[in-house]
């Protein structure tokens, strides 16, 4: 599920001793097991979801009508929901995370950088149900206040429910910031000092050093963090289900209730009947496909952005 950042190729180990060989075989066996498990995953999902694919055809991907009462299952609203929430969250989270990472690694004095960095790592480790509770008790009331204000200013009538697309985007942003920030901070810290000095020696100001010497060097790693964040945003289920409003339609406004691929599975699987279940499994399969695609694109982009000679 979670995309990985490619690590630099290692030199292969020599095979000159017996115990090395045994070790090698164990590693190869375990790695193959992981591969087989992944393929099996996909296979189980595609078989389980087959009835839904067969019944809806291409409409499963591109149809807007999800109506369990009538037995119609078209998943575009959820694909769109996943897309909007994930990219909306990144739009907010990436600038904030990179700015925070730059602050910690380049500006903050050491006594401040350490604690702030640890706090961010801690945030990344909080279970998502806790974020969901925070969403319900803090975020939703706050969004409600905003909605009341919005209605009073614009006159557009809107029930201040607090739940909906915007809340989901905000909670996802909060959840991925620690990831992206922690990784960005690490790669920025790893930028060799001679890159900073090269820029300074040309008469760069601090900000120019960041633009010329640091960000270009760190961009591949930062992008790796962004894609990890994207993976989490696409897959995040619990917290999103708790705040998104769970409506089977594409959001028509930022406040509208909607659902994502993960949230529809989570909120329906428990009581799914014989026709709904395959549809949910099929959505699960699509989720797997999306994750693989994100991962592959990530690898390509990261390889191309990595500075030559530092790979």
């Amino acid at each position, binding site marked *: 599920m979670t995309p990985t950042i490619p690590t630099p190729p290692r030199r292969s180990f020599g095979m000159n001793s017996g115990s090395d060989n045994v070790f090698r075989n164990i590693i190869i066996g375990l790695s193959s097991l992981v591969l087989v498990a992944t393929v099996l995953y996909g296979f189980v999902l595609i078989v389980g979801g087959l009835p839904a694919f067969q019944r809806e055809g291409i409409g499963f991907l591109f149809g807007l009508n999800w109506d369990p009462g009538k037995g119609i299952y078209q998943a575009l609203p959820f694909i769109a929901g996943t897309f909007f929430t994930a990219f909306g969250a990144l739009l907010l989270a990436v600038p904030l995370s990179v700015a925070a990472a730059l602050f910690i690694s380049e500006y903050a004095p050491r006594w401040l950088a350490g604690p702030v960095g640890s706090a961010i790592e801690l945030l990344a480790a909080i279970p998502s149900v806790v974020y969901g509770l925070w969403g319900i008790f803090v975020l939703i009331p706050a969004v409600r206040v905003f909605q009341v204000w919005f209605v009073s200013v614009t006159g557009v009538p809107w029930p201040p429910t607090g739940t909906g697309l915007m809340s989901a985007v905000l909670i996802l942003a909060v959840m991925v910031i620690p990831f992206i920030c922690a990784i960005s901070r690490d790669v920025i810290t790893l930028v060799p000092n001679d*890159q900073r*000095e090269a820029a300074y020696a*040309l*008469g760069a100001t601090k900000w120019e050093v960041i633009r010329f010497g640091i960000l270009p060097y760190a961009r591949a790693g930062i992008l790796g963090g962004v894609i990890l964040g994207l993976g989490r945003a696409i897959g995040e289920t619990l917290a999103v289900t708790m705040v998104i409003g769970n409506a089977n339609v594409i959001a028509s406004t930022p406040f509208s209730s909607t659902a994502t691929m993960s949230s529809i599975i989570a909120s329906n699987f428990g009581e799914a009947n014989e026709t709904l279940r395959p549809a949910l499994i099929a959505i699960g399969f699509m989720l797997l496909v999306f994750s693989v695609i994100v991962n592959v694109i990530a690898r390509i982009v990261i390889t191309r952005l990595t500075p030559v000679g530092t790979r």
Partner: protein
Amino acid sequence: MENQMKLTPPPQSVISTAAVRLESQSVSIFYGEKEAVKNVDVSFKSNTVNALIGPSGCGKTTFLRAINRMHDLTPGARVTGKIMLDGNDLYGDGIDPVDVRRRIGMVFQKPNPFPTMSIYDNVAAGLKLAGERNKQKLDEVVERSLRGGALWDEVKDRLKAPGSSLSGGQQQRLCIARALAVDPEILLMDEPTSALDPQSTSRIEDLMETLKQQVTIVIVTHNMQQASRVSDTTSFFYVGDLVEHGVTSEMFTNPKDKRTEDYITGRFG
């Protein structure tokens, strides 16, 4: 020039004041409490190559980095005394270190091109920082600087290739070209050839002879042959002190201080 300099005897004033470009007055440099460079007075004349030699850890790099105010970036580092460029104290009130670094270029021990930038963009970086956007002007300066760094012929057909795709020696010449592009008055070089093969080293040594037409060079080296080949004056540092400064040929044939003699004859270092 060499002859004229040989005629002026005492080391500290080898160079007549009229032509002095860079001068340090009672410069001491501290890392926290530790005094790494002690009370150094030395001056360098226009269009000369000046070598700083001495055993490892004696303060050569520390002194060099004071000249373009790199120590401003090191927490705990402190410079006292004056460093004058054309009579203006680089550490004076209201002097912007960014400005100082634009006028005093630096080449580092390990080639450090910007690896995500093309050869062209590496050379143009300093100009772009200074706000130059005119494509024609940039093209012109990039070519002139690459010629200045003796690299033009090797890279003119692949200016868009990444700077890091060059060999180590070429990368160092790229860094020289990058420093030259902003038209500095002084060029500081910290053991610029210590990471390079002999052939690349001799190319850069040859280059210095031409470079001094346009800049005053201060070069740290712990290679005595290099100092004697490329420099007009030599300053010998020992545990933070400037022990001896003088015309290179004179110092290598007739050192005044016992420690200098021991060092250049290879008895320690």
